[in-house]
């Protein structure tokens, strides 16, 4: 590759590492102009929305969990809430609290996975956390311990860490006993310290000087930091309930790949995920999480996507605290699930997956048979923002050599913790790759 600025320059990665699923990156620069940026998603389609048709209204929590092994609880939660909405059922506060507790487990394990195993190696110049562990084994082990606390929580409440078995439409098959939850307290207290150390650790990383101007979209709840409930709001004045989602968000077909990109009908590109949640809901974080964020150098909003690793650490700390608080206040729902009778209708539901807003909508026949299913995962919503970030970042860093630029571009993609298995609505199968 020549250093002559007038020449064509190509930056590409055939198979992105340390992301969930299969994707590639392709950037073409002519002189000082970024001509093309594409996050190609070649993950094969599995046609979930099609195979859900004709299934029973009770089945989506188990079936849609299989869209993603890293955020199954997000799928289960959005699915059951959409179906309950279609059937006109509200589950009540004790079931809701247990859902939130399970969701805390998913945030902890998914965020710890991303911070320690997927993203931190970028900042420290390692290929993997396994390499990093040879230098600082205690740090990596701290991350694994934190991750385990999340998985343990999912095991106890959900019955299994990957694809929990205990979630059903209307609530849970079985409510865990207070004594069972009590076994989680000690590991969670240790995790709380590990989470605080994590915020300090990642807060000390060096971040590229970079800001984006995407519209932030996240859930907002009357009192809680958004996780399983809330209205969808944005910093441009959006404020809607789940059944208005499709009025405001559309999925576009773009020319450069077979990708559908979710955009706001009114304003286009937007961004969902930890940075959006943090910036829109900072006041809903616990005092301890707010304080840790301040000490790590964050303000009450954050527009540098490279600092998403710090925000994830703050959210992990919050999720551990919240889990402890929910366990302390726990009253087992009795019955563990409310009866949900099917009826003809349409219902929408959403929740905040670790990597952003996840929307489900189901149309049911009178006997509960699914006639139509619509699923909009977070990575489809963020795909445009990722590409916009790459274009802006490359334009500002053309002085870097190819190796450094490629490294930082991959890092910029990982800022979003993309979940490509989730996002297989949109794909480009024409990408060359290793065997």
């Amino acid at each position, binding site marked *: 590759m020549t250093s002559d600025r007038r020449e064509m320059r190509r930056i590409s990665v055939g198979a992105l590492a340390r992301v969930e*699923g299969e994707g590639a990156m392709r950037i073409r620069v002519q002189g000082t102009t970024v001509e093309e940026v594409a996050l190609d998603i070649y993950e094969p389609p599995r046609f979930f929305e099609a195979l859900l048709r004709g299934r029973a209204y009770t089945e989506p929590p188990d079936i849609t969990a299989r869209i993603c092994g*890293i955020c199954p609880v997000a799928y289960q939660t959005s699915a059951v809430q959409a179906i309950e909405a279609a059937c006109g059922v509200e589950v009540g506060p004790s079931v809701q609290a247990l859902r939130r507790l399970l969701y805390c487990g998913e945030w902890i394990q998914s965020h710890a996975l991303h911070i320690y195993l997927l993203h931190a190696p970028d900042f420290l110049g390692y290929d*993997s956390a396994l390499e990093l562990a040879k230098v600082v084994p205690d740090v990596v082990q701290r991350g*694994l311990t934190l*991750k385990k606390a999340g998985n343990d929580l999912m095991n106890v409440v959900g*019955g299994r860490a990957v694809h929990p078995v205990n979630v059903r439409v209307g609530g849970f098959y079985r409510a865990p006993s207070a004594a069972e939850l009590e076994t989680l307290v000690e590991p969670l207290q240790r995790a709380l310290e590990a989470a605080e150390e994590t915020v300090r650790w990642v807060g000390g990383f060096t971040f590229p000087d970079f800001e984006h101007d995407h519209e932030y979209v996240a859930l907002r709840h009357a009192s809680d930091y958004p996780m399983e409930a809330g209205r969808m709001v944005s910093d441009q004045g959006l404020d809607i309930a789940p059944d208005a989602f499709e009025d405001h968000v559309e999925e576009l077909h773009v020319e450069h790949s077979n990708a559908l990109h979710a955009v706001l009908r009114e304003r286009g590109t937007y961004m969902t995920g930890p940075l959006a949640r943090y910036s829109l809901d900072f006041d809903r974080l616990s005092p301890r999480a707010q304080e840790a964020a301040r000490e790590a150098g964050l303000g009450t909003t954050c527009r540098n996507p490279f600092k998403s690793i710090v925000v994830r650490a703050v959210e992990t700390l919050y999720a551990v605290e919240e889990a402890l608080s929910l366990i302390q206040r726990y009253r087992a729902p009795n019955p563990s699930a409310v009866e949900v009778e099917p009826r003809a209708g349409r219902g929408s539901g959403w929740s905040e997956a670790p990597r952003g807003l996840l929307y489900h909508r189901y149309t049911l026949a009178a006997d509960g048979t699914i006639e139509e299913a619509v699923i909009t995962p977070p990575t489809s919503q963020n795909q445009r923002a990722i590409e916009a970030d790459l274009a802006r970042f490359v334009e500002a860093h053309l002085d870097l050599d190819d190796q450094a630029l490629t490294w930082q571009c991959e890092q910029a993609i990982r800022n979003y913790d993309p979940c490509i*298995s989730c996002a297989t609505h949109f794909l480009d199968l024409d990408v060359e*790759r290793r*065997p």
Partner: protein
Amino acid sequence: MRTNGTDADERRGARPTGAAEGANRRRPRLAVWKFSSCDGCQLTLLDCEEELLALVDRLEVAYFLEASSAVVEGPYDVSLVEGSITTPDERERIQTIRRESATVIAIGACATAGGIQSLRNYADVDTFARMVYAHPEALDVLPTSTPFSSHIDVDLELRGCPIAKEQLLEAVGALLHGRRPNLPTVSVCQSCKRRGIPCVMVSQGVPCMGPITQAGCGALCPAVGRGCYGCFGPAESANVGSLMRWWRDALGMDADASRRALRTFNAAAPAFARSDPFAAGGSAAGGDGSGHHDL
């Protein structure tokens, strides 16, 4: 970046004869590959939080894209393969991996039975594609989702959606020590008995696939009071017809619900897919109509 066939053929001569033998000289090389899947089974490897760092002391992680940017070229001593074959590209890719790997372990329901995406095998994939994509003609997909064993010789299969962490560690541990892994082929019923979980079908009338499903999960579903939904696939000599009759006669379950139960995460497993127990006017295939329940 594709490794073409010629390269792979050249490397064949370097193929080690076995992982255990290789361990005497150097750490066995592990590769982890993803096909059509949710990532949950390879995540199970990273979920071995207490064992992971010890494990990578014993194994060289040569290719594991979800965890590492470092890529070591083959051959590999052990390849863990996740997912099912759903595209022409995947169909070719697994052949290359087979050639480059001394031992291939298929991990999970997708890898051993086609996964939830094998529901397309019972439908028209073009219809599926039109339901989801604006321009389905641009997709390059196969009409079926199939397990690796339909394409290559697989040395070991780990069941489950997802696999059980304990079975993964058992398989890798056995390989490192050059012994056969201890993986049960009995049914989930035995796990329930061992754990003292009352039979949900007998005591609560809840339809349960435990009698025909392979053990390995530890009876997670009956433990929370729900019926097993078969995510570890068929047990050895599973009597599917008998269970279907039991569901119909004792629990009053209709044919559609029973069919859906068989067609989930292991929909292409022969014992679940071989014949439609309800094809002939709603009567269970192989049934003698006597109402005898040979559980």
